[in-house]
């Protein structure tokens, strides 16, 4: 299990990186954390002719709050989120979610943006980005563009990134003071890919839920918000029975994947308990 040969480029700047991408084209891939790409190369399901290793680019390493956004650079590693990266509810949510991503040594290398670019349907960060409405900044020699996470991910392991573009940062909206967020993931062993997971976020205003966002991951071919579940909840007071209704609404509206070990039917069934438990976690989360 050795990767096929390739040429490694180690640019020091974003300009150099996108120049490589522009010049080489389709067979050139970006190497950030490499925790998904390298195994795919070892298994010879990925055969890039060239890798552009962006780990040496200083400008991509930062994480900061700009206005009401958390800006996450392309090589910010999962482990950066262990301790809350900002003092509000978002920092706390991300700190909880990161413990579900693979294992510690993977988190030391793997990156937030790399997860988005890889677009695994079971990626926790894809779920977070889609549910919370992240905007992604892509850069190429032709300039920069901002894309909503939901538009960026267009299927299992598939994105709308052009071959000459580099995902340079993710901009995640902060959660306000009245926000509550909860996450639940189901898998068979610690650190495994999610078979199903849900993220629930809402603002609690005068005892009712507003701006409800329910996202499901691992169930469908991409992380996606579930409008049916959100509709059940919007404007209502949080309650266990209502959460169960939302779960059922989600199960009734998802289009689940099927694979060798997990049926679509099981995923559909699972989506309901994921939503319910994510909501319960949100409701019990201390502000």
């Amino acid at each position, binding site marked *: 299990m050795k*990767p096929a040969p390739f040429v*490694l480029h180690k640019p020091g700047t974003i300009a150099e990186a996108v120049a490589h991408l522009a010049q080489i084209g389709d067979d050139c891939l970006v190497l950030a954390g490499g925790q998904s790409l*390298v195994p795919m190369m*070892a298994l010879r399901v990925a055969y890039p002719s060239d890798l552009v290793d962006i780990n040496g680019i200083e400008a991509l390493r930062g994480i900061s709050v700009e206005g009401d956004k958390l800006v996450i650079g392309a090589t910010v590693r999962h482990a950066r989120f262990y301790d809350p990266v900002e003092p509000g509810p978002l920092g706390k949510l991300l700190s909880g979610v990161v413990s579900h991503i693979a294992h510690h*040594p993977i988190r030391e*290398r793997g990156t937030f943006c790399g997860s988005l670019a890889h677009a695994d349907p079971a990626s926790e960060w894809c779920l977070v980005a889609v549910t919370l409405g992240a905007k992604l900044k892509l850069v190429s020699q032709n300039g920069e563009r901002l894309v909503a996470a939901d538009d960026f991910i267009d299927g299992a392991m598939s994105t709308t990134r052009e071959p000459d573009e580099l995902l340079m940062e993710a901009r995640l909206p902060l959660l306000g003071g009245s926000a509550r967020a909860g996450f639940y993931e189901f898998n068979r062993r610690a650190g495994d890919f999610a078979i199903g997971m849900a993220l629930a976020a809402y603002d609690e205003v005068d005892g009712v839920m507003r701006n409800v966002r329910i996202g499901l991951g691992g169930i469908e071919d991409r992380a996606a918000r579930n409008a049916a579940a959100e509709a059940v909840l919007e404007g209502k007071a949080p309650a266990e029975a209502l959460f169960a209704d939302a779960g059922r609404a989600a199960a009734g509206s998802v289009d689940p994947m099927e694979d060798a070990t997990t049926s679509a039917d099981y995923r559909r069934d699972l989506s309901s308990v994921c939503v319910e438990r994510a909501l319960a976690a949100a409701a019990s989360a201390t502000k």
Partner: protein
Amino acid sequence: MERHPLNLTINGTPYAVETEFRKTLADTIREDCGLTGTHVGCEHGVCGACTVIVDGKAVRSCLMFGHQAEGMEIETVEGLEQDGVLHVLQEAFMDHHALQCGYCTPGFLMLAKGVVERGEDLPEEELRHLLSSNLCRCTGYQNIIAAVRAAIVAFREKAAGGVEQTA
């Protein structure tokens, strides 16, 4: 099969080698630097047998290319023993029968070194979660957990003793 010069620092020793870009850090350490204590168990980042420390962080050396580690400080199992004195973690693994075939052992040692050297008593669940990073087929983990726990205490005591001596 084009090879490229590569300078690595492993356990404080510089190595100048020539390798293909595609060669993983694990294979580079083993084949080009001759340090075979780091083992390869799956080559796809799941088993953790190849865990080494790069710039202070425990990582899977099968998921990095050797050329990505240029200029970084790499620590492997061979560096744990200092001046003929074993690391408390190595002693604890022997005392607690935390290894059988020993193939996964270097990976577990490098995985646990960080938490041991912080001397911090993790709650049981967190320690298990950390150690769930690596796979062992022989031991059922119980003795590995016990050994790491004991090493945390031993490291702290040793550090406290060291402070007293110098004070």
